[in-house]
């Protein structure tokens, strides 16, 4: 009887400390949304330009299953991405990792913007001359210049 009571007590204690079995299973089984959150940023080498989360091929389904397995093992997003990079190369990532030649995709756009901006400013300065007469400054009470301009254009077109 004492043994039975002790066993029941121990079972009760364990039940109080440990989470229910169902909850454990739930925590170990990542949801589709958790899998897709990572799959969204990955591309398989075959289905280029189709993100893994929406790719309908069997190969991509297997990749998603792999993500699910890794998540169940407690891996985080960076670890899972690194795993796929080691297996298949940088092309699985949605954007080139910032190293080596890949820096070009991050540096060229701002460089082009700055260079183009400098050319634009230079060209505008070169083409600019001081305004001959400022109509607004000369006669603030003149007729609305917008209406004048509109009517001029309409008149010119017959």
């Amino acid at each position, binding site marked *: 009887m004492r043994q039975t009571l002790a066993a029941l007590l121990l079972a009760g204690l364990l039940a109080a400390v440990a989470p229910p079995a169902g909850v454990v299973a739930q925590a170990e089984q990542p949801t589709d949304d958790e899998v897709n959150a990572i799959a969204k*940023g990955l591309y398989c080498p075959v289905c280029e330009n189709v993100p893994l989360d929406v790719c309908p091929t069997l190969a991509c389904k297997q990749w998603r299953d792999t993500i699910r397995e890794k998540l169940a093992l407690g891996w985080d997003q960076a670890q899972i991405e690194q795993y796929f990079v080691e297996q298949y*190369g940088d092309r699985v990532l949605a*954007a*080139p990792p910032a190293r080596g030649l890949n820096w070009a*995709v991050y540096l060229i756009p701002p460089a*082009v913007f700055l260079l183009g901006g400098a050319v634009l400013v230079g060209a505008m300065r070169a083409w600019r001359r001081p305004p001959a007469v400022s109509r607004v*400054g000369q006669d603030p009470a003149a007729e609305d210049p*917008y209406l004048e301009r509109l009517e001029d254009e309409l008149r010119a077109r017959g």
Partner: protein
Amino acid sequence: MIEEIGYSALVLAFGMALYGAGAAAFGAKRERPELVESARRAMLLSWPLISVAALAIIALLVSGRYDVEYVAKVTSSTMPPYLKVTALWGGQEGSLVFWSWLMAAFASAAGLRRWDRDRDLLPWVIVVTMITLAFFLSLVIFVENPFRRLWLDPVGNTVTAFLRPAGARPLIPADGQGLNPLLRHPGMIIHPPMLYLGFVSFVIPYAFAIAALVARRTDDRWIRVTRRWTLVAWLFLSLGLLLGGRWAYDVLGWGGYWGWDPVEIAAFMPFLSGTAFLHSVMVQEKKGMLKHWNVLLIILTYVLVIFGTFLTRSGVLSSVHAFAQSAIGPMFFAFIGITSIVSVRLLLDRWGTLRGENQLNSLISRESLFLLNNFLFIIILAVCFLGVIFPLVSELFTGQTVTVGPEWYERITGPLFAGLLLLMGVAPLSAYGSSSWRLLGRQLWVPGSVSLLVPAGLLLAGVGNWAAVLGFWLAGLVALVTLYEFWRGALARHRRHGESMPVALVRLAGRNRRRYGGYIIHLGVVLMATGIIGIELFQTETQGTLARGEQLNLGSHVLVFQGLTQFNTPDGREVSRAELSVYKDGRLVGQLFPRQDFYIAANQPMTIPGVRSTLEEDLYVLLVGWEPIAQQGATFKVFHNPLVNFVWLGGFVFILGTLVAAWPDRETAPLRRSVQAAAWVSGD
């Protein structure tokens, strides 16, 4: 017999194109107008000849001549007749013939115009269009012959050849493979012709620009003559892009309409340069400035048109669009290189004669803001180009292929598009020539102040996404400024002429279709921007596997899985179709039937979403997988796409505006008749 007729017609058209280009150039150089006229007639003949070839292909497609390789590749006996006809552009060879046919049609249309005032341009327009046509015809004659037949050689191997190889006997398959299932959507049936029309029409302004350079014409005549060609090209390109987006949304099953795929971008790049061109030509017409820049822009647009076709057709970039792969890449590459070098060399030769006739008077004048607009378009274009070619460059230099995905494009181009929206809100209020901050401020303060209600309302409603608040504010500003312009213009007419406001509005737009058509286009862009912000920043999604009767929740929507049925169709599909009941805020609002079609002959699945569409949102459901035996459980991916329908609505308004802007101006006809020698005054 049909094959021989079709191929002979292509060869003859190729000969006509070569003769036309040669005779026109020789006639111009030696000042022999009869040779130029002969070249013009050769140009006019090319279209009926290619029509014969295109009709021959259609006849083969419709009659199921599976001994012809192209027919066996793109049709099958289960396809309906209309799809067999549209299979003309469903594959590599046919689409190149179709491209050539459109090119010849546009060249002929240009050849039929009145050339009284532009005799010096005619020979060089013929040269450019006929060289372009000859290039495309050479691809189909020498590399991608659509009339090649299937043969069995003496050892039993299948070979393809136009003429019977020695000892071979004809191979006649019982059925064809059928058109790629992805291409059987109505949007995709119309999408390629629209894109091709857009591409081909841009050849005409380019031809006139080159002709003006060769003929040393420094005026803006080439721009005025090709104004409508350019707008028509832009219209078709826009339609092509819109239909492509709709096709992707309906068929590709990724929950969006634009994936920054390299081939999408290939069609987008000439649109960007073409849009910049449409704005900058107005500065040349008004102020006689930007002459070099406009020629450079149209050269760039032409090169991007050929580059776009190259990417689509050569298979150099593997993507969802690049169905066809062939050996024509080097030919395209050489053609792009040669035309670019020759065009730029010609421009540099004429550089000194193309000096601007005016100067910038103000940094906030209309022409300055158009320059800024061009700058942003070209930066976006450069970003797109970099994104498309970088994977190739990386592979070439490091052996490592990389992916340049949507996030990269969106992060970089997002602020640039926002800058364009800001310019759209400000530029219509600025004046050509002299302008000042004070004057601009006077024009802007009313719509600018009212537009602040948009971010205020959003912040009060709890929208915390700063990018969305900024985007909606800019969209609101553009809408208000545009409507303000309509209202002020109509009010001016009402006051001056005593017209009622509706009449004044219609007459105002009718008197300056390009400007007010342009404003309608701006309103279309506002609507599209609203949709893009909605789906890009507020899209939500979930996925789950459901047993029959179970439910999946997404926001205020609940989907209950009712069951899955599987059946075969007469056109060779195995269809798996799920049924879901959709509840919103606890109320049943409809049923959805997402499905997967498996095309047996093509061995290809296709995911067709079930979509519940309202103006404010789309509920977009994909059948991802299912239990094939019990049919008791299925996996669904559900997207909630807020405001996405504003993209399509905006597209419609955008096209409407382009039609208004491109519509022939009735008022210019009597002017032209009565004042033959005078400068042609029309447009903005």
